[in-house]
């Protein structure tokens, strides 16, 4: 179990695009994962307000969901996204770090089902929520 957690962390941190966004895996294990995305001016989607683009939120949510699947006790190894839906509840506050939290709530031999949220400092209302299905792949 510990090995798989270490492996998942190394795997996430070896992803070139995760490095480009400065993603950090802060928590992982038992089908749950947490990843942070620090505020970065390159990721601005609306130059008038400085709000981060929804695409960057998609990336942190997708990465976090994948990490949650890989950390599930019944997952033999890798995973790939089959489908991901994102609901954007509100604009992220400029300057704040975004934290994604994903839970793999059900897994079969072939498919993993995941839900996730993305928060900034205001933890009462998520910036976005996601729900998706992922492949379950052997080692």
């Amino acid at each position, binding site marked *: 179990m510990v090995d798989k957690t270490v492996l998942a962390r190394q795997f996430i941190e*070896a*992803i*070139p*695009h*995760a*490095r*480009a966004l400065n993603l950090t895996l802060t928590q992982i294990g038992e089908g749950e994962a947490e990843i942070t995305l620090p505020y970065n*001016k*390159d*990721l*601005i*989607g*609306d*130059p*008038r307000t400085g709000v*981060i*683009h*929804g*695409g*960057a939120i*998609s*990336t*942190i*949510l*997708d*990465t976090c969901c*994948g990490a949650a699947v890989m950390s599930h006790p019944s997952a033999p190894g890798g995973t*790939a*996204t*089959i*489908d*991901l*839906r*994102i*609901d*954007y509840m509100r604009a992220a506050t400029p300057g704040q770090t975004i934290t994604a939290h994903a839970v793999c709530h059900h897994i079969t031999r072939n498919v993993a089902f995941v839900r996730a949220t993305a928060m900034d400092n205001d933890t009462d209302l998520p910036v976005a929520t996601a729900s998706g299905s992922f492949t379950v792949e052997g080692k």
Partner: protein
Amino acid sequence: MPRPRPEPMQVVKQRRDAALRALVDGVPYIRFLNISFDRRGDELTGVLNFDDKLIGNPFLPAIHGGVTAAFLEVTAVITLSWEHMFPSIESGEIDADAIVSDESIRFPKTIDFTVDYLRSGLPRDAYARAFISRSGRRYASVRVEAWQDNHAKLFAQASGHFLMPQPPRDKS
């Protein structure tokens, strides 16, 4: 009444290209992913110019699923904004400078976005085109498809809903 003479081609091209450039180049995240747009008349094709930093799986290697989602969403928003503004760009009501500086020009906001991953994104350029299924006064529904070598073999498709910019009077 005689038909007015059509505008010289260069005038039309210059006006449309400047407006499109203003729409796209003003967004830092679009530059970060290095997405550009090809224009043929009013029809746009998004181009995701490949770079190693877009990789999500270094072992395959494959483009990051989040990048694919972002590319499709950017193509949807730009196409929607473009079609929404096109009549005002053509009439001269909106010019390229106004798109950058005029605070009253707002852009559609994503309400939800769903991506189907059909194949892994290969480490090379990708293309996307958005189709506006419906664009109402408040909401728009958009479908997007993305491909690489062969347009008939999509590697991802998406559909999403957007909140259209409201005229300043309407406080809803």
